């Protein structure tokens, strides 16, 4: 048990740091939140820079053009890019972390050759077509139908929560090909070009007023059978296989960004003044506020340690430990406490959304209070995480 980086890991870090130090100042200003063409250019441009410097596909095997790094190097990569303020993976997320790994494990050589290099270069933006209005926590009950018509599937139905659906080139799409089979058995995984006739994309306005999520409507969309990944009706397994690429790194950027926010909040508290019970004083002198900051730091430090444990387990065994669900469940709770504390510190100023503030990675504490609402919902609600922990880790009986 050693948390110190090895000489090789430190060398990787130093090389990365010096590259980041050289390229980040050349990037210019990021686009506005709702400037979608600008954001596509920004996100894919960064992917291309990573590609050229050899950092693209950091967790992909080298035979598929990835860097084949260890989980610890992946952690270092995320830590350094976050710390130095490099662009976030953004709309490269699905291609890099979900669809790409799926193709690596399940696709034909032809499918791989067509898509993987383009993904690494940032030439293809992918989105995910899994959830549906009536298939959220119960994803396997999805009902978007695909009917075979010779060498095409004819797809009709509706997907939801498709991030960046309106700018993506391809969608990893789950469809029901056998409505008679048990629900996990009749699903098929398709590569769906987003420019096919019959596809309509409508952005969903979130509570924060942003629109990175979309609904996608399919009206007799004809997708070539050649776009199927894996066997017909085996799509549930194909969709789940990506988890073997998971190495406990999913929340590293988020967590480190949050730790920076907490440090900013502490600074703000030290400088602020409040009307206390007996006199005006800085919020830092308020025992409750100061200690809550301290307790939050204890929680985040622990979550960072947990992350390192999960990454180390992934490095040893090829599979992350059970800490993933624990992290997500616990982090959602702690970050909500931080958002509440921010509101308390800001008092009436918490009513105002900062112009152009970024709700996810700091800068706008008021908007962050909205963003955190999604942490216990997106990618498996906290209720589902508790079921997973209770049933899969602790062995308690299923109730569904």
């Amino acid at each position: 048990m050693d948390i110190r980086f090895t000489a090789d890991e430190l060398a990787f870090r130093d090389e990365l740091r010096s590259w980041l130090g050289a390229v980040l100042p050349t990037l210019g200003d990021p686009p506005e939140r709702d400037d979608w063409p600008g954001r596509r250019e920004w996100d894919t441009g960064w992917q291309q820079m990573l590609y050229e410097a050899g950092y693209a596909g950091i967790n992909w095997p080298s035979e598929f053009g990835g860097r084949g790094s260890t989980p610890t190097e992946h952690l270092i990569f995320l830590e350094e890019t976050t710390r130095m303020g490099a662009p976030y993976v953004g709309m490269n997320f699905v291609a890099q972390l979900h669809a790409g790994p799926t193709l690596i494990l399940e696709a034909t050589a032809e499918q791989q050759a067509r898509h993987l290099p383009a993904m690494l270069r940032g030439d293809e933006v992918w989105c995910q077509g899994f959830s549906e209005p009536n298939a959220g926590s119960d994803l396997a009950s999805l009902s978007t139908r695909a009917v075979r018509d010779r060498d095409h599937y004819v797809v009709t139905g509706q997907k939801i929560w498709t991030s960046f659906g309106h700018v993506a080139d391809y969608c990893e799409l789950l469809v029901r090909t056998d409505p008679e089979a048990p629900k996990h058995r009749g699903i098929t995984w398709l590569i769906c070009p987003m420019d096919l006739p019959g596809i309509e994309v409508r952005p969903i306005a979130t509570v924060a007023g942003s629109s990175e999520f979309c609904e996608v409507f399919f009206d007799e969309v004809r997708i070539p059978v050649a776009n199927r990944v894996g066997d017909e009706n085996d799509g549930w397994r194909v969709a789940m296989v990506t988890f073997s690429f998971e190495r406990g790194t999913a929340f590293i950027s988020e967590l480190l960004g949050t730790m920076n926010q907490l440090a900013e909040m502490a600074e703000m508290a030290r400088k602020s003044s409040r009307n206390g019970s007996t006199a005006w004083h800085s919020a830092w002198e308020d025992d409750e506020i100061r200690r809550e900051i301290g307790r939050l730091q204890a929680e985040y430090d622990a979550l960072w340690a947990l992350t390192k444990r999960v990454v180390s387990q992934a490095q040893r065994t090829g599979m992350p430990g059970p800490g993933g669900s624990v992290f997500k469940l616990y982090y959602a709770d702690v970050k909500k406490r931080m958002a509440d504390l921010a509101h308390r510190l800001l008092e009436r100023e918490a009513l105002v959304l900062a112009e152009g503030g970024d709700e996810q990675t700091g800068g706008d504490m008021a908007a962050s209070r909205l963003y955190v609402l999604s942490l216990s919902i997106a990618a498996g609600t906290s209720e589902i995480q508790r079921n997973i922990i209770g049933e899969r880790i602790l062995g308690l009986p299923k109730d569904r």
Partner: protein
Amino acid sequence: MDFELSDDQVALCDGIRDLCQGRFDIDTVRGLADCGGVDRRLWGELADTGVFSLVASEEEGGVGLGWAEAGLVFEQLGRALMPGPLVGTLLAAGVVDDEVVGFMERPSGPGLVEYPDVIDALLVLDEHGVWRVDAAELSVEPAQSVDPLTPVGRVAVLPQGQQLQSDCYGWANRAVYLCSALQVGLAAGARELAVAYAKERRQFDKPIGQFQAVKHTCADMYSREEVARAALYYAGCVMDATCGPGVASDPSGYLYFEGSVVHPGDPLGDAECGELVRAVSGARILAASAADRNGKDCVQVHGGMGFTWEVDAHLYLKRAWALTPQFGSLDRHADRMADSVGADQFGRGAPLG
């Protein structure tokens, strides 16, 4: 003792609820975001029902009801997500002639004014009393509010205005009380929305409300709401017993200004006076917490849909947030509650025994 609504009070609640459902359904309310939160014609209709003149005496052109009734009405308005400067407009009835009246504490520096585009006048509270600032005197910079139904603007310096009253404690107490009433209504509205969704939404071939995770969340929402409501009604009764219509003086006591003490010479004695402050601060703490937590739980029960603009869950939560930092932070109210704790504080173990 009969701490249950009277028939008249039930009828009043029903009347306001029907009015909100009929004239201020959620689409209408959402539409008010486009006109600064207040549509003059609709506002006039609301005023005509007497919701703002409820407590003003009949000589002042009011209805002459009590603070308990004002709380019931504001609870319904909160439940309906009614926007507009409700608190200021009620408190100003019989005092100024303006129709749409904001009310806020005087900030020590630059401040945020709510509903800046639609108010006729802004009443400002400071330790010297209550002041009227004409809306035309305000120089407001736009700002983006977290709550679409509580538009705000920034003012660099709030004009001094014209002094209306030298009493500040009573005004502050009443504003706190009315904010609490709105938040009890928000807590109720959020709970109702969550429960309805939990009955209707199905996953794993069951209504999600059948899962204990959801069912128990709803039960906790209801509990918070009921406890906060009890605190609110209690505060309303105490206000009516100490400074309601027909009660001569206004022994509103100290609330959150420095160095203030219980109003001397009060005919009801210090005990009831401190009790009013305690009842109001207590209601404030519980109502704000119930509205905040029920709003969050309502979002969570809705899952992904709760994170959309389309579902109303966020509107309850954002309104709760808009109301909470007004008229003394919750920390200040907790401090005031703490000051009231002690076996001999009221000369007896429990309030108003």
